[in-house]
Every structure is written in structure tokens, then in C-alpha cells.
């Protein structure tokens, strides 16, 4: 047993952090929200240069065929910086879907080298395709059939950098049990990647709130000296600390018999921890946190929008219990 990240994985996360910290992601996110994707897509190309877009693409198709743990490490860091774009869709769900549902070497190659950004709708769990206006490949997986998708008009999203599009099937790409299996695997990996984004975003919110509480002075003291503030932040730290091992364990069991149980458990915990982080970070900041100028809103709205993105919390809890009561004690 060795239940810790390798030094290489820590280095990978640090490299992504340094790249994103130097890329003005918040500025790119504001443009993305206004429908101008150029700056955000440039960051995506830089990430492709570090191999991020190739992680979940099989080696035979020009990708890295990396372990799900590597994917989780990357997606946590993208969540940490609230990167705009269809992260879990293009980096996790679509590569899995295409690799397992049929023969799509060109698209997989494009995903791997970063020239193709893709999104997917898979009702009922994923009823809309995120960022279909920024993606160059839109898919629909429904009732055992994979379609090339035609997006309709977007509906309003809490996260303005993540627009949600209804999708109609325009052309059948494949159908039958392999497509059903591939869809189920793709949803699982998408859920895992989304959970990692949530954990990373939660960590960022905690960091920002701790920094602010250490500087802001009221009543002649830094507000981080007040226990009313300290204890709320401690509870966020505890929630994140205990969500992380569930996330890694789910990555280890991806594709195995306990995958559903572990992925859903991780999702529930990561979403709860990130949600607590949003409420606490906003409360600790006070009014300044409620402004776009400060930027906390990018993380707050992304977290709240990602929580229902890959199935509701209740659906995931039900899945955990279904797995537990099916196979006995474990």
C-alpha cells in the first residue's frame, strides 16, 4: 500500500499551478463569460503543451493513457484556478466515450494534442452540454446511442463562464451495448474530474479567505484572530482534508467493481467541502467578496454550478447505498 501522490505527481501539480498563476485566468474568465473565448483557449493550448489534454486519451490514439490519479491531480489544479471551459467534459468524459464507443482516431488525436475541445450531453444525468459555443465537437449520448450533437440556445447558468446548451442528435455515430458501457464509463470519469475541480476550487476559496482574514483589521485586530472566524475556516480545512482521500481512492478504483460507489462517495464529499468553502469564504470576506472587482465570485459561482453538473448529490448518495447494500458489507 502506498496511498500518497508520487513526487512526479506533486511536480506535475506545481507546474500546472505555476502556468495558471502566470496566465491571468480571472481575466480570461471574464472574457469567456462575455462570449470571447480567445484568451481562455490560449491557456488551454498551454495546458495541452504540458500534456493535460492527452491524459485520458489512450496511447494508441496519440494520448498519454495516464492513470485516473494523474487526471485527478490535473483537474484539481484547474479547479484551483477556476479555469473556464469544458474541463471534465473535454479532458475526461469525451476521451473515454470516444475511446470505448467505436473508432474515432482523428478526434482522439485532436483531443490529445489540444487542437480539439469537446463537450457532451448525456441525459438524464447530464442534460446539457457545457460550453458548446466554445467547443469544436459537441456530442450527445442518449439511450445507448452516440450522436454528433447540434446545440440549441443556451440557458442561463449560475456560472457565467459555463453556458449550458440543450443538444439534439444530428447524426448517429454509434449505437448498442458498447455505447451504453462507454457512456457509463465516461460519466464516471467526468464525475471524478468534476469532483477534483470542486476540491481544487474549495482549496482556493480557503486560501483566499485565510489570506484576507490575516490582513483585514476590525475592532483593532486582524479578523483571523477572532475564534468566530477561525473556527469556520478550520471546519472548511477539515472538510477538504477528508474529501481528498476519497477522491484519490475513487481514482484508484476507476474502471473496477467499486468505481460507482467510490466515485459517488468522492463527489458527495468534494461537493460538500467546496460548498462549505464558498459560504465561509464569502462570509469571511464580507462585502468585498460580493464584488466582481475582487474576483471571489468566479470560484463561488463555479462551485455552485458544478455541484449538480454530474448528477445531484442525492443521486450520488443513493448510488453509494445501492452499491453497499448490493455487495454486502463492503
Amino acid at each position, binding site marked *: *500500500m*502506498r*496511498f*500518497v*501522490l*508520487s513526487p*512526479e*505527481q506533486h511536480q*506535475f501539480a506545481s507546474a500546472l499551478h505555476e502556468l495558471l498563476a502566470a496566465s491571468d485566468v480571472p481575466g480570461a474568465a471574464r472574457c469567456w463569460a462575455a462570449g470571447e473565448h480567445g484568451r481562455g483557449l490560449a491557456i488551454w493550448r498551454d495546458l495541452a503543451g504540458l*500534456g493535460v489534454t492527452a491524459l485520458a486519451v489512450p496511447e494508441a490514439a496519440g494520448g*498519454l493513457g*495516464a*492513470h485516473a*490519479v*494523474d487526471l485527478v491531480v490535473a483537474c484539481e489544479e484547474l479547479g484551483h484556478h477556476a479555469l473556464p471551459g469544458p474541463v471534465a467534459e473535454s479532458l475526461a468524459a469525451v476521451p473515454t466515450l470516444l475511446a470505448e464507443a467505436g473508432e474515432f482516431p482523428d478526434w482522439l488525436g485532436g483531443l490529445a494534442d489540444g487542437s480539439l475541445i469537446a463537450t457532451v450531453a448525456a441525459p438524464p444525468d447530464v442534460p446539457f452540454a457545457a460550453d458548446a459555443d466554445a467547443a469544436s465537437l459537441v456530442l450527445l449520448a442518449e439511450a445507448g446511442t452516440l450522436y454528433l450533437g447540434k446545440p440549441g440556445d443556451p440557458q442561463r447558468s449560475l456560472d457565467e463562464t459555463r453556458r449550458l446548451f440543450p443538444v439534439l442528435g444530428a447524426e448517429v455515430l454509434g449505437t448498442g451495448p458498447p455505447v451504453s458501457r462507454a457512456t457509463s464509463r465516461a460519466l464516471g470519469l467526468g464525475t471524478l474530474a468534476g469532483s477534483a475541480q470542486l476540491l481544487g476550487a474549495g482549496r482556493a476559496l*480557503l486560501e483566499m479567505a*485565510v489570506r484576507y*482574514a*490575516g490582513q483585514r483589521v476590525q475592532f483593532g485586530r*486582524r479578523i*483571523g*484572530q477572532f*475564534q468566530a*472566524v*477561525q*473556527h469556520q*475556516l*478550520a*471546519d472548511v*480545512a*477539515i472538510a477538504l*482534508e*477528508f*474529501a481528498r*482521500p*476519497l477522491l*484519490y*481512492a475513487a481514482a*484508484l478504483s476507476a474502471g473496477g467493481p467499486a468505481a460507482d460507489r467510490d466515485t459517488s*462517495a468522492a463527489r*458527495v*464529499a468534494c461537493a460538500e467541502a467546496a460548498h462549505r468553502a464558498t459560504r465561509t469564504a464569502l462570509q469571511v470576506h464580507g462585502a468585498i467578496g460580493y464584488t466582481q472587482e475582487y474576483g471571489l465570485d468566479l470560484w463561488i459561482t463555479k462551485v455552485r454550478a458544478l455541484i449538480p453538473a454530474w448528477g445531484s*448529490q*442525492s443521486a450520488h*448518495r*443513493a448510488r*453509494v*447505498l445501492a452499491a*453497499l*447494500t448490493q455487495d454486502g*458489507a463492503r
Partner: protein
Amino acid sequence: MNTHMNLDLDAEAITFRDEVRDWLAAHVPARPLPDVDTEPGDAAHRAWERELAEARLSVVSWPSAYGGRDASPLHWLLFEEEYHAAGAPVRVGQNGLFLLAPTLFAHGTPEQRDRLLPRMARADDVWAQAWSEPDAGSDLAAIRSTATRTDGGWLLSGQKTWSSRATHADRAFGLFRTDPAAGRHRGLTYLMFGLRTAGVTVRPIRQLGGGTGFAEIFLDGVFVPDTDVIGAAGEGWTVAMSTASHERGLSLRSPGRFLATARRLVDLWQRAGSPAELRDRVADAWIAAQAYRLHCFATVSGESRPGSAGSMTKVFWSELDVALHETALDLLGLQGDPDWLDGYLFSLAGPIYAGTNEIQRTVVAERVLGLPR
């Protein structure tokens, strides 16, 4: 980029786990032992400890010289999982095993270890802890009980309270003020004393659940030889804090206990007809128990954390234990299942003992997060 992360057990770990599992299956009493805080319960639990010790299973993580097996932290976790999954009796010696023993290994003399540890491993000596005083609870450094110098040792005077197991235990350990002129944290000394020694009066305290799991200890000129001081005189605070971090960390609250309880909760939910209105809470309780277990695996794998990270663990398991039992009570309604009722009452103490959760959150805020003091 190849990942080396894994949760797999090697052959050695599996062999050890299976040996423990088989032994427990053959030896765990079919009917629960009497309450450990009664005279017959104390005797029955000591007998159980001797049985464990004869199988060299009472202190698996200790060196073999003291009756252990030099088990790695991972093997210790596996032992605990099996122990709790088997529904084995509460460890009557837990104060000694999990609080005093780590202190003796870190700060004791070879003579102390040789004299005390083998007897502890067989429950020939059962130890009580004597930390708190009427005016020193969360603020432990406010201790007023004194140890004054005498020929060949010290004389203890004062009052200790909330001393777990003290009613039936043989000996106790705690902090005493040896230099009243020194500052709050200085001038304290870590001492061990006999509970049946002249000058000691133990008064059991009836707890919320009706039992007498803790007691008051009155000390009036109780003699302690120099050989029963741990560490140097005046260094007691430092010595005690190493014990306290064991208490908050892995030792006392093993994940096996919570996962076993979570599995019982899932079974209870299923037997109650899988009521939809409690599904979310049952799932959350199991998820938290699993999170705690995995977190322990990360810890024994050597994940680097500040020592004060144990404070996060303490808040997490104590709240988890309450949530598990609260959910069970809501599933049971008015059915009086004694295991769940007793477990619930016990869980209520968790957020208080071993350092209140408020103290722990302050430690997390200041030492883990680096917030200003």
C-alpha cells in the same frame, strides 16, 4: 507518468490480517462482557486482555521484547479494522496502551519500560489518566495539584477529575506542579502513582449514561519515588504534549471502529425497509467513515502533515461518531436497541474529551492554517 499510488495489501499484510481475523472469530466472546466500569466487568475485561496477550495480539505495534509484534502502522490499522469488525470487547487498558505507552517509548527510561510495559500488555496493571482538575479542563496548564520534593521522591497533593477508568484501575499518570514559581507551562512534571497507595481517595462519578467511567481522585501527601517520574522534572508539559498528540492522532480512535459502526448502520437502514427520508444521512455517515479510514491509510503511508493536523482528525472522528449514532436513533425510532443507545451516549462525550473540539479548531486555525493568534 506512471502512478505508484495504490491501496493494495501485500502478502505479508494479508497473512497477518487473516491470522487476526481467524483468531478473533474463534475467541471473541459470543455474549457481550459486563459493563467494563463494574467490578465483574473489570475482571472479565482483564481476562480478555490476558487472552489477547497470550496470542501476542494485545499490543501488536510494540516491540516484541515487550509482548508486541513490531507491527507497522499499516498492520496496526488492519488489526484495528478486524478487531472492531469482530465486535470484540472494549480495551480496558486503553489509557495505558494508547496514552502512557507511547510516552514511555518516547521519554521513559529502560528500567521504566521493562517494569511497566509487560504488565500493561497483560492488563496486570490497568492505568487511569489523571489530567483534568476542577479548574484545569481545556486550560490544562492551569493545573494546581502539586508534587513537593521529599527523600527519594515526591509527595502529591491536590485533586484530579474526569479520570477515565480510575474507579477500578491500579495506577494513574498525570501532570503535577513541581515549581510554583515557574510560568504556567513550566514547572510541571509528569508522574505516575498507585491508586491504592496511602493518601489516595477515589470517588466514582456517575456519568450521563449511568455508568462510572470516570472518577475524582483526591491526593493527600501521596509518595511517588523518583523512578516514577517520566522525563525530567519541570519538563512535564513537553512530555505530556507528545502523549496528547497520540491521543488526538491515530492511536485512540482507530478507523476500524467507525467503519464497523457505519456498516452496522447501513444494515440497520436496510432492515428498516431502506427509508428514503434517511438515505442521505446514512450515505453521508458511511462516506465519512470511509474518508476517515482512507485518511489513516494516507497517514501511515507517510503523507507529510504538521503534527497539529491531528486536531483535524479529532474533530472529524468525534463529529462522525455522533452523526452515526444520531442517524441510527432516528432509524430506530422508539425501539430500544441497547448497543445503539449506549453507543450514542458514549459518542456524545467525543467532542469533549481528548481536547474539546473548540480547542482543536483553534489549533487548526492557528497552526495548520497560520491564522494570527
